């Protein structure tokens, strides 16, 4: 039995389900959301079915969508994602909305994230060897232009590092004022990092701090798995577990736990 499975058995939900619920709560009613695939997609659908029925999902292939697709998606281009979409346009149609500042929140994954929320999805450094990763896709665009960016990744010391080796997608750079210096829009930047252990948020100085730990996770465990000296909120919270309603919707959408094992 893996740790995730024992966790699921003990608490009635998996870490992935907890991350999805936490991610869903980052979406408010009526917001435009740059969704992406896997956990964020599920989070978007959960948000729409619970507290944010008016949220609109955007995909880089030009698709805008307000209702869940009838089948589980492996890619944003899967036929069920296009049928019944709100709009199928061109990539620029969606990117234009992003650059106008109309996209409230964008979800991103990453190989590495650092203390200022910068992301690397271009070069990995496993076993001291440089490994070429797929690259930005739309991640750099979203990180530059969405009003808020939420990052989801597994909490490992090598992946939450002091400084990323390559800034594929800019966070707060070197800290306060950096984004403005670079010319990035005033209303933009990282909002949260949701990991398998907790949720990190950002201070005015642009540095991440631990805002909540997941149920059953200790602060020490988080700190030991973070590659820099992570600050902890004065009023550290415990991440709210997924509600029954959130779990019900999640499992209806992903009955075989394809995404949330």
């Amino acid at each position: 039995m893996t740790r995730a499975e024992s966790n699921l058995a003990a608490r009635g939900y998996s870490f992935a389900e907890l991350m999805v619920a936490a991610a869903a709560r980052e979406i408010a009613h009526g917001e435009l959301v740059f969704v992406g695939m896997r956990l964020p997609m599920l989070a978007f659908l959960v948000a729409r079915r619970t507290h944010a029925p008016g949220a609109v999902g955007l995909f880089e292939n030009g698709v805008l969508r307000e209702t869940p697709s009838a089948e589980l998606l492996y890619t944003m281009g899967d036929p069920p994602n296009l049928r019944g979409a709100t709009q199928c346009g061109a990539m620029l149609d969606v990117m234009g909305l992003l650059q106008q500042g109309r996209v409230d929140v964008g979800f991103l994954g990453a190989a590495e994230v650092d203390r200022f929320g910068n992301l690397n999805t271009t070069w990995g450094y496993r076993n001291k060897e440089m490994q070429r990763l797929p690259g930005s896709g739309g991640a750099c665009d979203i990180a530059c232009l969405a009003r808020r960016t939420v990052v989801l990744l597994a909490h490992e010391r090598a992946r939450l590092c002091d400084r990323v080796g390559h800034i594929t997608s800019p966070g707060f750079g070197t800290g306060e004022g950096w984004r403005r210096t670079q010319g990035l829009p005033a209303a933009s930047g990282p909002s949260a990092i949701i990991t398998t252990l907790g949720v990190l948020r950002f201070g005015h100085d642009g540095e991440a701090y631990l805002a909540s730990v997941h149920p059953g996770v200790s602060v020490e465990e988080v700190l030991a798995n973070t590659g820099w000296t992570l600050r902890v909120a004065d009023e550290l919270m415990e991440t709210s577990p997924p509600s029954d309603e959130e779990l019900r919707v999640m499992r209806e959408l992903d009955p075989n736990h394809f995404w949330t094992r």
Partner: protein
Amino acid sequence: MTAESKLLTMRDAIARHVPSGSMVLLGAQLEQMIPFAAGHELIRQSRRDLTLVGPISDILFDQLMGAGCVSRVMAAWVGNVSAGVGYCFRRAVERSIPRRLEVVDYSNFTMALALHAGALGVPFLPTYATLGSDLLKKNGNLREFSSPVSEEKLIAVRALRPDVAILHVQRSDAHGNAHIWGSLGVAVDGARAARKVIVVAEEIVEPSVIASDPNRTLIPGFLVAAVVHEPGGAHPSPVQGYYGRDHAFFAEYHEQTRRLEDFEDWLARWVVQTTDRGDYWKQLGTGRVEKLAVKEHAFSAPADFGY
């Protein structure tokens, strides 16, 4: 008044219009309608020194790199969308196997803008995207400048004009007037930015079918050099209304290309020793093909162009 037919076999279309050294746009519709059949023909005809252009191409770029056709790639994302990394891409970048590969990293938006600039006929287009990123530092086609109308920094994305855009479409007439629907990505700008367009169509239809809906004619025939009738030519990627995505094929590719010698076996089996697309479908087997077929049609409501 009747336009000449541009119908060619895939073999002839590639032989005539895509020489070694070309800059080729592939995968304009992202995960849908990737012109795999055309890519395989490029491999069979041993093209070299291609520059591949596209936002992503799922595993087609990886295959062309593994086969040694490519000296440069200009893209936002190279890999296997549903399975992760592309091993041929990694071998080429990390160890120059089978040959050295230059990578020019774009984001999706800046790639779309580069093609849009080409389509609009301007040397660049401005954006805020990539400000502060290392893409900006390393890609010479992205350049910081001061806005002429405001006190702001902007990025100038230099125009790209591929030699050839190969676009898979649902239906076309013999002149290349083509209907595309579903996922559009950068297809419209790509066709207009390119100096030549090859249309690969699931169906060749009468001109009257295309002319019945000129808003869906996203590629006008006068931009098209060749039309190839190649049903199933986008497999394993999906074509809305024609077949679904063969997710298992992508997963298998991932497993069967991790080691160089395994990739070579994969390539021999699916490309080199496969004479054409008909042969490819035979290998795939009827059971697999049937599983991908459309189960439920969903036709668009008609639009009335009458008066």
